């Protein structure tokens, strides 16, 4: 059961904003290819851990270790690609 890529990316942006409490950020203003964990959004290691939990809760997909996490969280594009790939593997 995979989502349409555009819808998936929007959902991920909404999850980022609500789950990481980015109150002043509009989900639509997050660019697909923008780095998530660099200056722009000001996220840190605890945010990364929280994102792992949110992904598992909302998509049922685990991020097994820090290395996978680093590449999956590089951008919304990267995260969406990771989730789609994992869903395809499982499905």
């Amino acid at each position, binding site marked *: 059961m995979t989502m349409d890529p555009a819808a998936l990316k929007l959902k991920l942006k909404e999850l980022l904003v609500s789950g990481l409490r980015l109150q002043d950020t509009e989900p639509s203003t997050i660019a697909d290819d923008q780095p998530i964990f660099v200056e722009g959004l000001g996220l*840190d290691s*605890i945010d990364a*851990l929280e994102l792992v*939990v949110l992904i598992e809760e909302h998509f049922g997909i685990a991020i097994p270790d820090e290395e996978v996490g680093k590449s999956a969280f590089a951008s919304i594009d990267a995260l969406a690609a990771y989730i789609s790939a994992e869903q395809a593997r499982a499905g």
Partner: protein
Amino acid sequence: MNGVPAGHTAAGPAVPVVVTGLGTVNALAHSTAAFATALRAGTCAIGPVTGFDATGYRSRIAAEVKDLAIPTWLPSPLRRRASRSDLFALVAAKEALTDSRLDIAAAPTRVGIVLGATTAGMMRGETALFERIQGTRRRYTTTPLLGMPMATSADLLATVFGCEGPRLVLSTACSSSATALGVALDWIRLGRVDAVLAGGTESMCRTIFAGFNALHALALEPCRPFDRRRAGLSLGEGAAVLVIESAAHAARRGAGTHATILGYGMSADGHHLTAPHPEGVGAALAMRRALARSGVGPADVGYINAHGTGTPLNDGVEASAIRQVFGSAADRVAVSSTKSALGHTLGAAGAIEGLTTILALRDGFLPPTVNLDEPDPACELDFVPRTSRPAELHYALSNSYGFGGNNTTVVFGRA
């Protein structure tokens, strides 16, 4: 009569203060004598969690207090309401008072209580709270929740032991009971009291266990402080209570002393809520302040009981801070983490580890860092790996660093 004399005299090292009673309950032992033996033996009490169902948690080990007999000397209504952490505190306090032979009834308003804690009665309160949140029952009893506010621990001790002096509970995460020992020292030097039951208590609960697991802060195997392969901390539980007393008061009643307590220093990192300042600014400040207030120099210090949780970040930062403060004297001071033996006891850590530091001074030995198989070359200090050693010590430090970047160092001296 209580009260600060008119004119605010700043406390100074001129007023000697001593420790005349020791009491502890922890995963290694239920008494101080047994604790000292276990420390020397390098026993590790970290193992699979049995106090609650740990299914589903990433790390499932901890150092738990097991098979503690509920004290028969406790009046039954209080026994019913006392939470697990209250029980630890009561047993430890009883041992310390018996050890010190302090006659509280002779001047009850001159005996105070300061405790450190973080979870208090959460273990029993969790299920009760959850039922309320979910609305799963028609009626709720409040007894499980009565022990939840941590202020009640001090009130319980005051009632049971008849202390009528000031009482306080500090909650600054992992530095809570280190600061409690320091506040006791200040109270005595300010003339408020002659003696204080000072310590800390902590009991395992699912909230803490889940939270540290969620932060990936718990090692999957028993923690290895200062080890190259260290992978996180191990949680523990227990309590320690010290009878801290003005030396003059102790001498007048012919009390034996275990050690002196000279001073303490506090600081905040002002950096991050869980990660330490990468350059150990706060840790170094706390040590410097403690030494300055105690009139002790780095060259006089023979042992540091480190905070040493075993997390990749803390241990490196702490070692670096020690180097900053001690300079070349760092080559001649032994540093060990007893969290390797009995886990990180959070709010009780400062008191339990303060007690450990006192045993080292009194009995002339260095408690080892258990599980330290490959010392991290980046840390470069004598961490007393695996095996305890005899040592003639004159002064020793105990470090405790808490969430919020909250740092306290206490300085003890041989009696």
